[in-house]
């Protein structure tokens, strides 16, 4: 790859500043003893102490993470199998029909999905709470996973599968040893996209939370009338740092396993 010239570097720096400035602005004021986002008075950690003292807030945060992890995991499993099913549909018309149905779910506004879930749950008699939020998050994540996995599946040449079965692979072997390893990048992309969608979803969640169960986005929204406190800034800062640590950790882990693979490759 050729080196970036100076204007490109400046442009890149500018883009990153625009993207990260609001986050750092928010983190900066989480240390403000003044209590507002204007006029920095003194350095304090009291807002961080407030986060840890507020058990309810911590429970809501943990619930948000649990919902995100579980819903993205389950929707990845369903979505990957669904995408494989779609690709192997013989009939071209049915295939494109199913695909369009999938895309409609991505395009349709969250508010409509949320409202229809609320009506459905109350009709069926599901109590609003953990289960209703989990189910609706799984539902809106599945089409996203399908969309992320499909291109990889399309790339997969059918001769690869034919070759595998010629060599005596069972259907199960073809799935676990040929298809899934091939589409692995797509699976991870789908999983992480579903994870982020679930973490920051407000519109759908707003309709289906209830009975004391809430996620972070809904809870913060409820604070609008009396004003959002700096406790939320502190919490956001903590989330940002944890995310950063996870990304860095993932990067280091990846680098190391790549190095190990390379040295092994060199020996054999």
């Amino acid at each position: 790859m050729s080196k970036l010239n100076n204007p490109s570097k400046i442009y890149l720096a500018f883009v990153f500043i625009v993207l990260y400035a609001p986050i750092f602005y928010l983190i900066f004021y989480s240390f403000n003893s003044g209590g507002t986002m204007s006029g920095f008075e003194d350095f304090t950690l009291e807002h961080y102490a407030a986060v840890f003292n507020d058990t309810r807030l911590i429970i809501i945060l943990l619930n948000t993470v649990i919902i995100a992890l579980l819903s993205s995991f389950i929707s990845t499993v369903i979505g990957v199998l669904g995408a494989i099913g779609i690709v192997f549909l013989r009939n071209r018309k049915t295939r494109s029909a199913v695909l369009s149905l999938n895309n409609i779910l991505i395009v349709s506004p969250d508010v409509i999905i949320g409202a229809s879930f609320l009506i459905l749950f109350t009709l069926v008699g599901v109590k609003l709470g953990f289960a209703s939020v989990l189910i609706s998050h799984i539902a809106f994540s599945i089409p996203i996973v399908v969309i992320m996995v499909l291109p990889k599946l399309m790339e997969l040449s059918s001769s690869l599968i034919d070759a595998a079965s010629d060599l005596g692979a069972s259907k199960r072997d073809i799935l676990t040893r040929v298809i899934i390893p091939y589409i692995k990048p797509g699976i991870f992309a789908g999983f992480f996209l579903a994870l982020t969608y679930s973490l920051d979803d407000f519109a759908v969640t707003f309709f289906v939370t209830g009975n004391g169960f809430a996620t972070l986005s809904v809870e913060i929204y409820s604070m609008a009338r009396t004003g959002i406190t700096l406790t939320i800034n502190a919490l956001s800062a903590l989330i940002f740092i944890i995310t950063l640590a996870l990304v860095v950790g993932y990067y280091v882990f990846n680098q190391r396993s790549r190095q190990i693979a390379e040295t092994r490759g060199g020996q054999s």
Partner: protein
Amino acid sequence: MKDIIRISIVLLAVSGLLLYAVSLLERSSATTGSGTISVFNWGEYIDPELIEQFEEETNIQVVYETFASNEAMMTKIEQGGTSYDVAMPSEYAIEKMKESDMLLPIDHSKIPNLENIDPYFLDLPFDPGNEYSIPYFWGTVGIAFNPTLLEDGQTFESWDDLWDPALSQEVVLVDSAREVIGMGLNSLGYSLNSTDMDKLREATEKLKTLGPNVKAIIGDEIVEMMRREEAAVALTWSGQAADMMWINEDIDFSVPQEGSNLWFDNMIIPATATNVEGAHAFINFMLDAEVAAQNADYVGYSTPNEAATELMDPEVIEDERFYPPEELRGRLEVYENLGLEMLGVYNEFFLEFKMDMEN
């Protein structure tokens, strides 16, 4: 494939651990006791310590959830699928909920602390005899202003002061038809429950002349705007004014002499409640003089609890901006339910006022 399985196992294990952590936290925050109640309240509208105190005293575990608007709260209750035992809607929402049979009557014999409430706040038109609701907090509509941004000596004793030419582009209004049209009616000396078309027309025409002074018509952002001194004068609820003053001490609040609105947030028991006994216990607990005093101190809104006011800082109670004196109280009016059609008329006039602003 192996690594996918490995990652899946890690994921599930982490979720399991987190679930376990949540259940541990929930158990530690609540005494294991007889039954639970769910409370549905506005965000930041109760002192969390009081919830713990209630749990300790009664052994009833409280599941607490918050909402951001009366409409959101009513939808959740009306749709079913939830079983809140206590909720805190505003008075106009109570009338609607009553009409759609969403409320349970409150058994006054189980609420002995009801006697702590100032009789002035009981038996109001939105709920005669307090059959379904008990007042939680109350307030007025008035003018919040920042003297440091205004000319010296600018006061807001009268609604007409908003029309002062010196306030060009300085006034922000809450985006709410009844507050703004009501202000227009009040400034002309009419009732803010007026249904007389001529009076409403007159009020709207008068409001149109306020146009040059109006900087913006906005919602809850009004609090942040005043705190940051982006606006100098705001027509708003006393509760929001208190929120502004909490952060920016320069801000002052005034309820004009012509009269204004008196609003309430109230405790009610939704028809879907499952623990009606517990709900009564909670309402009674919140009406206890010491509890109400501590809560009013935390939230910063005006409490209707007379016994509590005796325990509070006299400086707060004598603050006429938030606890108006008797003679002004006489000119405060509670919104009456004007019916859907009349509300439509109010909205129509409000829209006309807003459209006129754009020209």
